[in-house]
Every structure is written in structure tokens, then in C-alpha cells.
């Protein structure tokens, strides 16, 4: 499986994602600088990492979403390529319009950095195929702006179409309808606030995140 990680100035979890992708796919991902305008050929998965990008000026992910590389990422998404946005990557995906809604300041105003319980709301996506529907998993979050917001019509549509993939199973950030991760209409773009790449090895305290990548690999291979 051929993967790429987009590297923005200020991101730090690009390396965590690279380690996870290398470990699980057996091949090191291409690290693509945000000022580049072209992606390598033949990618199966493009990952947008977490960690602050550009200090999150204006709004979280606003600057990153206007980086030169993002036009190529949007084109790849529209072409059906798998895109995974984690944390800040999720914020970037909403800012580009690839995913609906926006991620606002946590309702409690605190930066939340801990393991949280998630329930798998849809196990029929390429990203969640290795989980059971309704299963509770544990994945860390680390964010200040993870409070998912969208109008009621959008929320109803997301739920009605099974596009809510992960929900918080405990109070975390005030997200509308406890949304932690959603897919786009076509199902090839996932954004989620929790960090699956941080739990891929028992040495990290668990492997609940690993199954996301394993499921993707099976789906895309």
C-alpha cells in the first residue's frame, strides 16, 4: 500500500502517523511538504496529521487548508483516493469543504489530552471495517478545538446516511451529537479528532488504533 503524509509547519503528529503507516503497511510513507503542488503517483492513502499547523491562525486548520498541496489533495479526494485526517487534519478537511461542519473551541474551554472511550457507530466504512458496530474502543485525544458543529439538517443527514463513524462514549468537548469522526458522502474521506496512530502497539498502552489502519490496508489492497 502506497501512502503519503502531508507535512505542515507546526504539525508534530506527522511523525507518529509516518511510524504507524510504516509499521503497518511495511513501507515508509512519502512525506509531502505543504508547499509542494503535486502528490506522488499511485497513492492509496493520503494522511493529514494532527498537531498545530501554523499556530492555527484565524481558525484551526484555516491556513493549512489553503496550502498549495491542498488543491492536489482535494483533487485526489474527488478522484476517490482514501484520505484520513486526524485531529488538526480533521479541522483542515472541514476547512477545505471536503467534510461538512466545523470544529470549534471545546465546550469546557480546556485543552483535553487523555484516552477517551469511543463507540463505533458505523463499521461498514473502509476506515472502520476491523471494528464491530457498537463496539467501545479507547483512543487518545489531544485538542483544544474538537467541538464538532453543523446545522441540524447537516447533522440529520450525517446520521441518516451512516456517515458518523465514531462517537464519544463519554463527555469530551461538547461535540454535536457526540460526533468524533465522520466520512464524506462517497465514504473515501474520514476526519476524526482522536489519534488512532498513537495506539498501534502494546508498548503504547493498546492497539485499538491499529485496526483502523489494518482495515484500510485490507480495503485498499
Amino acid at each position, binding site marked *: 500500500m502506497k501512502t503519503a503524509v502531508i507535512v505542515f509547519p507546526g504539525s508534530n503528529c506527522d511523525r507518529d502517523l509516518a511510524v504507524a503507516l510504516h509499521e503497518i503497511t511495511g513501507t515508509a510513507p512519502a512525506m509531502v511538504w505543504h508547499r509542494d503542488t503535486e502528490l506522488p503517483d499511485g497513492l492509496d492513502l493520503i494522511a493529514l496529521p494532527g498537531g498545530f499547523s501554523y499556530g492555527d491562525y484565524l481558525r484551526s486548520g484555516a491556513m493549512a487548508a489553503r496550502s498549495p498541496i491542498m488543491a492536489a489533495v482535494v483533487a485526489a479526494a474527488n478522484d476517490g483516493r482514501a484520505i484520513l485526517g486526524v485531529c488538526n487534519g480533521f479541522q483542515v478537511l472541514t476547512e477545505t469543504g471536503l467534510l*461538512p461542519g*466545523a470544529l*470549534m*473551541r471545546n*465546550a469546557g*474551554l480546556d485543552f483535553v489530552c487523555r484516552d477517551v472511550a469511543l463507540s463505533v457507530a458505523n463499521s461498514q466504512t473502509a476506515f472502520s471495517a476491523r471494528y464491530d458496530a457498537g463496539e467501545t474502543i479507547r483512543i487518545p485525544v489531544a485538542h483544544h478545538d474538537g467541538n464538532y*458543529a453543523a446545522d441540524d439538517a447537516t447533522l440529520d443527514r450525517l446520521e441518516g446516511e451512516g456517515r458518523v463513524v465514531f462517537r464519544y462514549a463519554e463527555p469530551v468537548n461538547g461535540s454535536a451529537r457526540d460526533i468524533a469522526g465522520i466520512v464524506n458522502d462517497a465514504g473515501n474521506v474520514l476526519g476524526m479528532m482522536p489519534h488512532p496512530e498513537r495506539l498501534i502497539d502494546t508498548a503504547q498502552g493498546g492497539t485499538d488504533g491499529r485496526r483502523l489502519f489494518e482495515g484500510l490496508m485490507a480495503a485498499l489492497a
Partner: protein
Amino acid sequence: MRFDLPEAVTATRPRTMKARVIVTLKSGVLDPQGRAIGNALAGLGFAGVNEVRQGKLIELDLADGTTAADVEAMCKALLANPVIENYRIELA
């Protein structure tokens, strides 16, 4: 005493225009920061505030020839997120 610049000077001086873009959260969008400010005001004894909403003011110093339509395009492309925010432009 009033002193008028010679016409040749005023004609060549670039006209500068400023735009103020006021970005506010749409009604119905929760504003936890505004609420925290409201709580702080109440804590200081200011009892007369029902609700606080926090927004952004972005001032643009425009180059000659930049139009209101250009500023509108900037708002749509970057300065405001239409999913959660409204914006208003004041030109001066």
C-alpha cells in the same frame, strides 16, 4: 490657519482605503468563550449582561484599486467560515 497641498502633490499621493471585516458567530452556534467572558463579568459584579458573543475584527489596509468586491471575495475565501460565521464589511 488652513494649508492646502498643491494639486500636483494630492494628485500623485496614493489614495488608501481601509476595510474592517467584522466576523461574528452565527446565531445558534454555541460560543463557550463568550460564555466564559460573561461569567467573568458577572464575577466582577456586572449584573446587567444577559449574554456575551465574541467575534473578530480584521482590519485591511487596501492597495489602490482594491474594490469592495475584492474584500467580499477575501471573506468568502478565507476570512470567515460560512459554516459557523457571518461577516460584515465596512469600508472607510
